[in-house]
C-alpha cells in the first residue's frame, strides 16, 4: 500500500510531465526552440520569469535559511525582489530590442564576434552549472499556491494574530552543542557576525542586486517577447509574483523555526527540508506530499530553463558562430548540438551536486551563482549598451576577470576553506583544510568591481574604431527596437 504523500507526489508529477509533453509538441525549429517564436504575452512571460526564479533555492533554501538564521536569511528575500529594478530599468527593454537568442548576440553588434562569443558561452555555462547544482542539491522546489497555503496555515496556527506570530519569533528555542539556546529571530546578526558581518551583508546585496540582470536563463526570457512594452510589463508581472512570494517567506521561515524547530529540522533532512517539514507539521502527510511534488516540478522547470540557456549558448555562440564562423552547415544542426550540450551540462551539474551532498543550503549556493553572474556578465552587458568606447578586448577581459575573480574568491572563502576539528567527518568537512584567505562568503563586493575594472582597462589599452562606429547601431536598436525581429518568420 502506497503512502498518501507518495501517491499525491506521483499524481502531481504525472500531470506536470503530461503538460510538458503537450507543450513541447507545439514548438518546432530554431526560432521556436530558442525564443518561443517571439509571440509571448506580457503576463505569460512574467509568470515564466517568476517560475524560473522562485526555484528550489527560493522555496526550500530561503525557508531553511530563515528557519535557522532568522532575520539575516530574510535579507536574501529582500535582495531577490529589489534586484528586478535593475532588470526593469537597465536591461529588459534594450535586450529585447537588440537581442536575438543569447547575451553574445547583443555584444556581437559592435564587437568582434568570435572571441566575445567564446567567452560569453563559457561564462553562461559557468553560471548555469552553478545554479543548476543548487536546484539539484535541493531535489525539489515550489511555487505560489503551496507558499500561500503554507502561510495561511502558519497564521491559523497563531489564530491569525500577527502580534502572536512575531511574539513567538522572539523566543525561538534550539540546542547548540548540547546547550539550550533562546533567540530572538527578528534580530539581525544570527548569520553575519562581527567582524565581517556588515561587509558580508553589503557583498551579498551587491551580488543579488546586480546578479539577477546577468542570469542567462532570466535574460533569455526577454528575447522572447514581441516588443519593449511587453518586456516591461512582463518584468512588472514577475515582480508582483516574486515580491508576494518573498514576503511570504516570513511565514515559511519563521513558521518553521517556531512550529517545527531547528532541532527537528536538523535531524530530518537539514535546512532545505524546512518548508516540507512545516507542511507536514501543520497539515499531515498528504500536504507534505503535495508540497514536495510542487517543489520537484518547479525544479524540473528551472533546470529545464537553465539547461536550455546553457545549451543554446554553446550551440549558437560556440558551435555555429565560433567554430563554424557563423555558417550553419546543415539545417537543424544547431538544435541537435544544443540538445547534446544540454545533456552534458546536466550531467556535470548532477555530478557536482552529488559531491556536495544534501547538506549544502541551496539559497546560499544560488547566491554564489548570482555573484558570478554579477561579476562576469553584467559589466560587459552594461558597458556594451552604454559606453561608446567599449570594445572586444574590454569584453573578453571583463568576462575573464569577472569569472576568475568570483570563482577564485569563492574557492578561497570560508565556505570551502576552514580548519575542522577531527570530530567533523564526511561531507560536512571543508574541502580545503586551511584558514580562509578571503574572509567573506560572498565575493560580490570585490569581484564585481574587478569585473568592471577588467572590462574598462581592457578597453582602454586597445583601439577598435569599428566598435565605436557601430555604437550608433546598437544605440538606435536598443532604444527604439528598429530592425528587431518581431516574429519567427522574419528569422
Amino acid at each position, binding site marked *: 500500500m502506497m503512502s498518501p504523500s507518495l501517491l499525491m507526489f506521483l499524481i502531481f508529477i504525472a500531470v506536470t510531465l503530461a503538460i510538458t509533453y503537450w507543450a513541447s509538441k507545439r514548438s518546432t525549429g530554431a526560432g521556436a526552440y530558442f525564443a518561443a517564436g517571439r509571440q509571448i504575452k506580457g503576463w505569460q512571460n512574467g509568470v515564466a520569469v517568476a517560475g524560473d526564479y522562485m526555484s528550489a533555492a527560493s522555496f526550500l533554501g530561503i525557508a531553511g535559511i530563515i528557519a535557522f538564521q532568522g532575520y539575516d536569511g530574510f*535579507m536574501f528575500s529582500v535582495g531577490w525582489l529589489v534586484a528586478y*529594478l535593475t532588470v526593469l*530599468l537597465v536591461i529588459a527593454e534594450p535586450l529585447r530590442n537588440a537581442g536575438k537568442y543569447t547575451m553574445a548576440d547583443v555584444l556581437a553588434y559592435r564587437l568582434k564576434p568570435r572571441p566575445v562569443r567564446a567567452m560569453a558561452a563559457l561564462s553562461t555555462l559557468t553560471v548555469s552549472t552553478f545554479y543548476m547544482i543548487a536546484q539539484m542539491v535541493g531535489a525539489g522546489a515550489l511555487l505560489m499556491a503551496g507558499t500561500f497555503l503554507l502561510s495561511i496555515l502558519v497564521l491559523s496556527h497563531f489564530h491569525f494574530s500577527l*502580534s502572536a506570530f512575531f511574539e513567538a519569533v522572539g523566543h525561538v528555542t534550539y540546542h547548540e552543542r548540547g546547550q539550550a539556546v533562546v533567540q530572538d529571530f527578528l*534580530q539581525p*546578526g544570527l548569520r553575519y557576525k562581527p567582524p565581517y558581518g*556588515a*561587509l558580508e551583508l553589503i557583498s551579498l546585496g551587491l551580488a543579488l542586486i546586480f546578479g539577477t540582470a546577468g542570469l542567462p536563463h532570466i535574460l533569455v526570457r526577454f528575447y522572447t517577447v514581441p516588443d519593449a512594452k511587453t518586456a516591461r510589463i512582463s518584468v512588472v508581472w514577475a515582480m508582483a509574483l516574486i515580491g508576494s512570494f518573498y514576503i511570504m517567506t516570513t511565514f515559511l521561515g519563521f513558521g518553521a523555526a517556531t512550529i517545527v524547530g531547528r532541532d527537528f529540522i536538523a535531524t530530518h533532512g537539514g535546512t532545505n527540508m524546512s518548508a516540507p517539514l512545516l507542511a507536514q507539521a501543520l497539515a499531515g502527510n498528504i500536504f507534505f506530499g503535495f508540497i514536495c511534488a510542487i517543489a520537484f516540478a518547479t525544479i524540473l522547470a528551472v533546470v529545464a530553463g537553465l539547461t536550455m540557456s546553457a545549451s543554446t549558448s554553446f550551440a549558437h555562440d560556440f558551435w555555429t558562430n565560433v567554430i563554424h564562423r557563423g555558417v550553419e552547415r546543415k539545417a537543424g544542426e544547431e538544435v541537435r548540438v544544443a540538445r547534446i550540450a544540454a545533456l552534458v551540462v546536466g550531467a556535470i551539474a548532477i555530478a557536482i551536486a552529488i559531491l556536495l551532498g544534501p547538506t549544502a543550503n541551496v539559497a546560499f549556493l544560488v547566491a554564489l551563482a548570482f555573484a558570478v553572474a554579477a561579476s562576469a556578465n553584467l559589466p560587459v552587458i552594461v558597458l556594451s549598451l552604454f559606453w561608446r568606447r567599449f570594445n572586444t578586448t574590454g569584453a573578453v577581459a571583463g568576462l575573464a576577470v569577472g569569472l576568475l575573480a568570483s570563482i577564485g574568491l569563492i574557492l578561497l572563502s570560508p565556505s570551502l576553506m576552514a580548519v575542522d576539528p577531527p570530530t567533523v567527518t564526511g561531507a560536512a568537512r571543508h574541502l580545503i583544510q586551511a584558514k580562509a584567505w578571503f574572509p567573506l562568503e560572498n565575493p560580490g563586493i570585490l569581484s564585481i568591481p574587478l569585473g568592471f575594472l577588467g572590462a574598462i582597462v581592457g578597453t582602454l589599452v586597445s583601439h577598435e574604431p569599428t566598435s565605436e562606429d557601430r555604437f*550608433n547601431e546598437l544605440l538606435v536598436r536598443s532604444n527604439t527596437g528598429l530592425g528587431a525581429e518581431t*516574429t519567427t518568420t522574419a528569422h
Partner: protein
Amino acid sequence: MPEIASRESHPSVWDRVAASQEFKNLIARKKRFIIPAFVFFLVYYFLLPILVGYAPQLMARKVWGNVNIAYLFALSQFFMAWTIAGLYVRAGNDFDKRSRSIRDEALKPGDAEGDGKQ
C-alpha cells in the same frame, strides 16, 4: 514586417536616426526618469545592509510588539520596488510612443533603408 537591411549595404540609417532630434529627445526623456529612479533605489536598498551592519542598536529597536525597525525597513523594500516599477510603467508609455514614431520615420517608403532585402 519589413526588415532593416544590413549595415554593409546602407551604412547610414543608424547614424542618421542617432543624430535626429527626435531620437535625442527620447534618450533625454529616458534618462530623466531612469537615472534618478536607479540612484534612489540603490541608495534605499543599500541603506538596509549598511544600517543593519553598522547601526545594530538603532535597527534592533522594537516599534510594534516584537517587530523591530530592521524588519520593517526590510519589508518596506518590497513596496519601494513595486512603487518604482509602477511609476516606470507609466513613464514607459511615453517612451513607446516616441520610439514608434522614430521607427515609422526610419521605415517610411521611399527611404532606401526601408524594405531592402528579403
